[in-house]
């Protein structure tokens, strides 16, 4: 909540906020052994497989790793724009 108020009233996040945001990402990378580049590859591969079945707008697709306690969770939010037109 304190951080939230800070973000509203100042343009530049405080150094503590920066530290926390950076650490959040670093810890996710350390715990999952997934780099930002590997995440991009994962996203591309996922998109390729899913696109065989459903039509997806790559720009609307969102994939994140979230933290719940010490458990990491891969969250994919993928709006479906329609079925893939079948070729007979």
């Amino acid at each position: 909540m304190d951080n939230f108020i800070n973000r509203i009233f100042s343009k530049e996040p405080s150094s503590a906020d920066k530290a926390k945001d950076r650490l959040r990402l670093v810890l996710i990378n350390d715990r999952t052994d997934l780099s930002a580049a590997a995440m991009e590859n994962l996203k591309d591969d996922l998109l390729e497989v899913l696109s065989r079945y459903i039509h997806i707008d790559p720009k609307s697709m969102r994939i994140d790793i979230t933290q719940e306690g010490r458990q990491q969770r891969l969250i994919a939010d993928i709006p479906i724009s329609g079925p893939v037109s079948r070729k007979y």
Partner: protein
Amino acid sequence: MSAKVITITSGKGGVGKTTATANIGAALATMGQRVACIDADIGLRNLDVVLGLENRIVYDLVDAVEGRCRLSQAMIKDKHIPDLYLIPSAQTRDKTAVSPSDMIRICDELRPDLDWVIVDSPAGIERGFKNAIAPADEVIVITNPEVSAVRDADRIIGIVEAEEKGTPKLLINRLSPEMVKQNNMLSADDVVDLLAIHLLGIVPEDKAVLISTNQGTPIALDNKSLAGQAYQNIARRLMGEEIPLLDLDKGSGFFNRISSVFGSGD
């Protein structure tokens, strides 16, 4: 009664493992507990000077492990507190002089006659660290509210869990309430949020710690200092008492909001 073995570790060096070991040991002993502190940092002996016992060493941990003395001969009695003992590390040997099973054997030999054995781990994640956590019933991970220390603490927590030692408890050392207030230091809430383990205590940044170390007297014996009170409270929490966190930010009770709900991360 059988002693509980607690290992204090951190990953990163210089965050206050040795100071915490000395002070948690001293605080428990002032409460009438029988305590031995073991310096498991072979080759970099330090717990002796923090406790002010450097002139009394005859035998050390490696002498006891290798059978050159009885274990009781390597136990140095503290000069301030009855029933506080130090088992010093060897200064001229390295970490390979002791194995994890040696540490388990030594601690098992100590258990019947004591209430607590506090093991001071070396920094790092190698042999010395493995030695230190081998005998542990419980592990305390100590960190500073600072990016590299928190990152290393997270790594250590993962390794301790993988070694099936349970989820460690967290001790945040050298927190500066003023810097937290200015939003220039991670708060205790931030660190607990990131590491997601149970918070055992917060020790504030306190000049009195260095002064007491200079004198070879644990700060835990000084009830007037905030750091001394923090260590007394940590000892009481280890004894099972429910003690609220110190109000470091006088007036607002900011730190009192943190409660044991974070212990569910296992």
